[in-house]
């Protein structure tokens, strides 16, 4: 690390400018909205303080939505990163057809969310779906359930679809991180340590830890703010079984035209996601956020 005595504006301003442009005013506006009563049908936007927040939190959907969002995030982020690491480790090997597998892994990435939702609706469809079809063929018909319309499995099914959409990105970045490891380090480790698990724990994992932290943060954010899969797969139902906080922002704002309440939910989401980020970076300390 070298020290520069003044702010390196020529290096940073071009990158900061678009981000600042797309955040300062919009976030300020959203914050203002969350403190005012902004409804499309009523003229005037009186200041109501924290009333919107109070109204949202005491609403009967809130606890369900909060729980669903937390469950989805706690399920998706670790699973995506773990599966991604396993797949990336596996795909580093060369075997017959490895090129094909490496390409097919990227498929879920190429599809916009709305389309992934359609494909997964088809997989989970109670009568035409491939999942129930396969279960029946295998003689396991009693396990065939209405995946997306039964309250017990709906959130799980949406979670599987969400994980599917996020896997390729994790694989790409982890393969890049794995390949960046100095080959001499790996050779030395292969000599010193016979157990592949120990080799992973003591040699490979520390090398890719920073990337894993980045991916955990990114995936926690993605899972906590996703709404398009839910919108297209279940519409938040059955009941409140798949209602997510992020989906509720959309519903309050664009379905009930209560923009104040929508923004209030959004800032509740901000606080919780910030807590996620802090928790992840505290649990897995890496040099990523070090200031020196």
């Amino acid at each position, binding site marked *: 690390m070298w020290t520069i005595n003044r702010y390196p504006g020529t290096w940073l301003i071009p990158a900061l400018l678009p981000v600042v442009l*797309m955040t300062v005013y919009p976030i300020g506006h959203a914050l203002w909205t969350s403190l005012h009563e902004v409804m499309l049908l009523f003229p005037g936007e009186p200041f109501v303080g924290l009333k919107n927040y109070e109204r949202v939190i005491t609403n009967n959907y809130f606890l369900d939505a909060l729980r669903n969002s937390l469950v989805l995030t706690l399920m998706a982020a670790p699973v995506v990163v773990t599966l991604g690491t396993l797949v990336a480790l596996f795909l*580093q090997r060369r075997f017959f057809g490895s090129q094909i597998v490496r390409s097919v892994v990227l498929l879920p990435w190429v599809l916009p969310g709305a389309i992934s939702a359609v494909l997964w609706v088809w997989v989970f469809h109670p009568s035409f779906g491939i999942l129930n079809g396969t279960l029946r063929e295998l003689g396991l018909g009693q396990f065939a359930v209405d995946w997306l319309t039964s309250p017990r499995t709906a959130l799980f099914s949406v979670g599987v679809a969400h994980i599917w959409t996020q896997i390729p*990105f994790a694989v*790409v970045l982890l393969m890049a991180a794995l390949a960046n490891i100095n080959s001499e380090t790996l050779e030395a480790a292969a000599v010193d340590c016979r157990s592949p698990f120990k080799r992973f724990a003591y040699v490979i994992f520390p090398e890719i830890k920073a990337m894993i932290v980045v991916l955990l943060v990114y995936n926690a954010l993605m899972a906590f703010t996703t709404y398009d899969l839910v919108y297209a797969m279940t519409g938040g139902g059955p009941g409140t079984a798949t209602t997510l906080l992020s989906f509720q922002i959309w519903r309050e*704002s664009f379905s009930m035209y209560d923009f104040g309440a929508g923004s209030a939910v959004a800032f509740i989401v901000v606080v919780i996601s910030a807590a996620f980020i802090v928790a992840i970076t505290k649990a897995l300390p890496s040099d990523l956020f070090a200031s020196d």
Partner: protein
Amino acid sequence: MPGRLHPLLTFLFAGLILLFTGGPVLLSLYGSLVPDRILFDSSRSLLTEGPNFETYRYVFTGQLPDSYLQESANRAMISDAARQVPQALVNSTVNALAAMVLNLLLGAPAAFIFARYVFPGKKISFLYLILSPLVPAVALVTPIYMMMQWLGLIGTPFGIILVHTARALPFTILILSVFFRRIPAEIFEAAVLDHCSRFQLFWRVAVPLSLPSIGATGLFAFMLSYSEFMFGMLLSGDAETRPVSVVMAALARNTDVSWSLLNTGIFIAIVPTLVLVVIVWRFVVEGLLSGAVKG
């Protein structure tokens, strides 16, 4: 790579990965090749009927599939939106390429400075970048729309490109700085002894050494823009500028549209993008595995 795996285990693992990631897409390919009435008829299948390319023909030439010209057929099952897919694909690719190039051009220098230097204001700028994507995009839709209207960018690709670039940049910078940090410090020290300026350190040392990683990051920026839906819908105007995610969502939400036409649309949208992504990805993997960085 050190370590060997039993061939059968390799095969099994590869099969599982293929099934999970490729399975749903394979279903869509299957659906696009058979008309609906065969799809929902358990006694007939692709094997008994042979592939049917009528819906592909419809998308590219506008000639209606024969199966929908029969008397009992429901004309609502054909949607004009399917015909917009090829144009939308071009729009999305242009947007995504622009967002990718902008992300790398603007993000890489910033990531380099963050990874290698200490300077006043570093913490606050980095924190701002990390925390800015916390606010869910849904909550920012209205103000961003108003801003774009004020700037006169509604209905042009520039508005979409600007928003997509800004939304991907924090992650681009974060990811690239992880890669730049992994370059051994000795290489930079040697370059400094050779009187390299800061820009030369970046352009002649850091960038060439992490080219494959930059490719992977560029792929991320590309895909984030390519698959983004909400801002694409709000900021695009008529069918001429609509990105593929918006066209596909319109097709998918229309419950009347035939499965095979929808799947045809999906498949036409997948293939060119997948080819593009795989080419970049192969370069990334090959470059990385051949050991571009020798410490």
